[in-house]
């Protein structure tokens, strides 16, 4: 291997790519060539570093200089100053990484300090399109160990010992699931990976696939050996084109190296992996619906039992795990189940990845040991809410989950504690809300989602979610009546008890948890016809404050319905009958003279 004096790591995850990291990487190639440094400096296009908020991110080693929001036009300066003259360009460094004159190493930066990277260990470190870099990071060592030194039973025992639980949402013990499939009678078995990532505000699995696809392939091969399968499938969403492409490349490379296919490493073990591209339906993340979809049918769930472990794809015993679950496996084999079990808490072992988003300063991807408190994630890692606004709640578990209000901010993040307070671990979406978000509106948002995505097979989910949504619409439009909250609660309990699959069974959760913690907000909408957060348009009036209005007329000029009138030198007035409450006037007023009430 060639030796380089500097490595430039450029994030090519979806977040940074969206902010232009492709062009930045190409510019580095160009200027490095211009300076004749190709033999000394290596440009590596990696997966996600996590801190998407300040992308595109570029890290230069050996110094560990962490450049943020790098634009194409900055590249020449970095090349000329940093790479040629050895002077770090301080102006472009991520602010927090600079401590007076010293550059902090990455794990000293607040955002990374409390994180622990197990599943994401290679993300942002290696080039995901190059199998050699994966191998250099101990890649395929676990598979080699399993095939040459361990029996199938020992592999399952090690996974059980680790205490790993499924990261796809339900938290079922992974080793036990492997054992079920191992014990299931049948000559043909399958190993499948759920990469459908349905939570509408989350991108953990996508980042693993984009940043470290081989870790999933290797783990699936290990699972195949353990349960006795020779064929694997990854069900990945069509909306993830970069992930699909990197998986295709990775599978091809692994086949060429003899790490997938027939007689792997000369051990006589056969295992291959193919992709199945999803076609856009949330319910297909549910395991039985996913199997139907893989068979080319409508993705509606099947009643369980029989469970996929006994009767899965094409009626054969099938192991299905989530992307992040697999991403932990190789580390468990390499370092031992006991090592993994030493991280986290009594009943939740290891680490968990979260996609932190919404009203938070450091949006991005974080991996934390189980048991970390919500406060540490929101404040220490996330940096709190922007613009000094007050933190109100955080939603975990997406449309199946619930919210954690500010008063419970010291709750440790574990499977069982989260369920106890009416939320859930879920797959890892974590959306922060501040004082400007209306909780009734948020509940309506999630219900809208489940209502759209209900597959229509069972009545409680198809009709019930619709009735709940109608009630929420009524409340947010100011037409709520006494007793609506109780009606919502009764409906919710009935749907929970009677829906066919977990989509319907969990759909009421966002409503139940917002009623539990923010009942006063529901009551304000119903009784006082008031939206305390100022979100629900029907309950708001925009008003011009007479003492602040300078009669400049900007609001009237921008009003799309000509609802504002006035004369020079006298305060303007809004005609409430024609106002459509779009809020443009408030955004445009240079004097802050317009408020909503």
């Amino acid at each position, binding site marked *: 291997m060639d030796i380089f004096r500097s490595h430039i790591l450029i994030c090519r*995850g*979806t*977040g940074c*790519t*969206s*902010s232009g990291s492709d062009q930045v990487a190409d510019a580095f190639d160009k200027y490095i060539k211009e300076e004749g440094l190709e033999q000394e400096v290596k440009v590596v296009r990696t997966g996600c570093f996590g801190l*998407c*908020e*300040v*992308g595109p991110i570029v890290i230069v080693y050996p110094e560990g200089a962490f450049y943020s929001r790098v634009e194409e036009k900055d590249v020449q300066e970095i090349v000329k100053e940093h790479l040629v003259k050895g002077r770090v360009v301080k102006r472009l460094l991520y602010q927090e990484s600079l401590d007076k004159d010293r550059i902090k190493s990455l794990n000293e930066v607040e955002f990374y300090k409390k994180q622990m990277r197990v599943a994401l260990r290679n993300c942002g470190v290696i080039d995901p399109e190059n199998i050699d870099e994966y191998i250099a990071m101990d890649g395929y060592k676990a598979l080699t160990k399993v095939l040459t030194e361990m029996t199938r039973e020992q592999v399952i025992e090690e996974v059980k010992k680790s205490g790993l639980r499924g990261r796809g949402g339900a938290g079922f013990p992974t080793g036990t699931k492997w054992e079920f499939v191992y014990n299931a009678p049948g000559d043909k078995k399958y190993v499948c990976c759920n990469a459908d990532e*349905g*939570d*509408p*505000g*989350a*991108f953990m699995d*996508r*980042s693993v696939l984009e940043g470290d696809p081989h870790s999933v392939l290797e783990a699936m091969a290990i699972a195949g050996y353990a349960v006795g399968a020779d064929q694997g499938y990854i069900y990945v969403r*069509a*909306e*993830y084109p970069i992930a699909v492409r990197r998986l295709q490349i990775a599978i091809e490379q692994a086949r060429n190296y003899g790490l997938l296919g027939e007689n792997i490493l000369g051990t006589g073990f056969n295992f291959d992996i193919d992709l*199945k*591209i*999803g*076609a*856009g*339906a*949330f319910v297909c993340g549910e395991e039985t619906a996913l199997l139907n*979809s*893989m*068979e*080319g*049918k*409508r*993705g*509606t769930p099947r009643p369980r039992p029989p469970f996929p472990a006994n009767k899965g794809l*094409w009626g054969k015993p099938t192991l299905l795990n989530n992307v992040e679950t697999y991403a932990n496996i190789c580390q468990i084999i390499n370092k031992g189940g006991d090592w993994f079990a030493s991280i986290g808490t009594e009943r939740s072992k290891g680490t968990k990845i979260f*996609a932190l*988003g*919404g*009203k938070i300063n450091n*949006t*991005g991807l974080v991996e934390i040991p189980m048991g970390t408190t919500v406060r540490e994630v929101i404040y220490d890692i996330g940096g709190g809410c922007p613009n000094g606004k007050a933190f109100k709640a955080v*939603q975990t578990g*997406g449309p199946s989950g619930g919210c954690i209000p500010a008063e419970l901010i010291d709750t440790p993040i574990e499977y069982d504690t989260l369920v106890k307070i009416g939320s859930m671990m879920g797959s890892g*979406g974590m*959306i*922060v*809300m501040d004082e400007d*978000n209306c909780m009734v509106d*948020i509940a309506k*948002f*999630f219900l809208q989602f489940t209502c759209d995505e209900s*597959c229509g097979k069972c009545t409680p989910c198809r009709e019930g979610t619709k009735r709940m949504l109608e009630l929420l619409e009524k409340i947010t439009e100011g037409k709520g009546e006494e007793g609506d909250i109780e009606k919502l609660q009764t409906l919710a309990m009935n749907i929970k008890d009677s829906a066919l699959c977990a989509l319907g069974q969990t759909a009421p959760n966002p409503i139940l948890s917002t009623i539990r913690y923010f009942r006063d907000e529901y009551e304000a909408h119903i009784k006082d016809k008031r939206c305390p957060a100022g979100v629900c348009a029907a309950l708001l009036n925009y008003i011009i404050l007479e003492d602040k209005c300078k009669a400049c007329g900007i609001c009237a000029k921008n009003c*799309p319905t000509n609802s504002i009138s006035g004369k020079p030198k006298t305060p303007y007035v809004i005609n409430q009958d024609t106002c459509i409450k*779009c*809020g*443009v006037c408030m*955004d445009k007023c240079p004097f802050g003279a317009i408020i909503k009430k």
Partner: protein
Amino acid sequence: MAVKEVRDAVDIPENFERLQEVIDEYKGKSGSLIPVLQKAQEIFGYLPLEVQKKIAEGLKVPMSRVYGVSTFYAQFALEPRGEHTIGLCMGTACYVRGSNKILEKLKEELGIDVGGTTEDKKFTLEATRCLGACGLAPVMMIDENVYGRLKPDMIPDILNKYR
């Protein structure tokens, strides 16, 4: 751009030849209906009934199943689409940061609802889930290009680039 001859994808015979090749490649394999529909949509841009019928015959599956699958998944379009697809992210992170206002502005500018196509067949408006760029919320995609940190008054300028 010069005025293009407006010819529907189903009026181009080569498209059906390409479809036949796809059908031949997948015929007899299990679980092939969805990939064939995906390829057919790549060829035709949407899945008109005649195309569905052809697939049903070719793969020897009942037409009811082809129609059932085509209508189940969000990815499949049964109507022709506009030249550019606008996908506004309505994922949770974007919603919390105000994607609703962007949606209102887009609807106003284009005069269409979500799922609709403008009369001049320029734009189709869609609401998508998390695009994985929550750091830039609210976000939208036009074809392959991502636009982030959106404010309602940025919309007209962005659309003009495609008009």
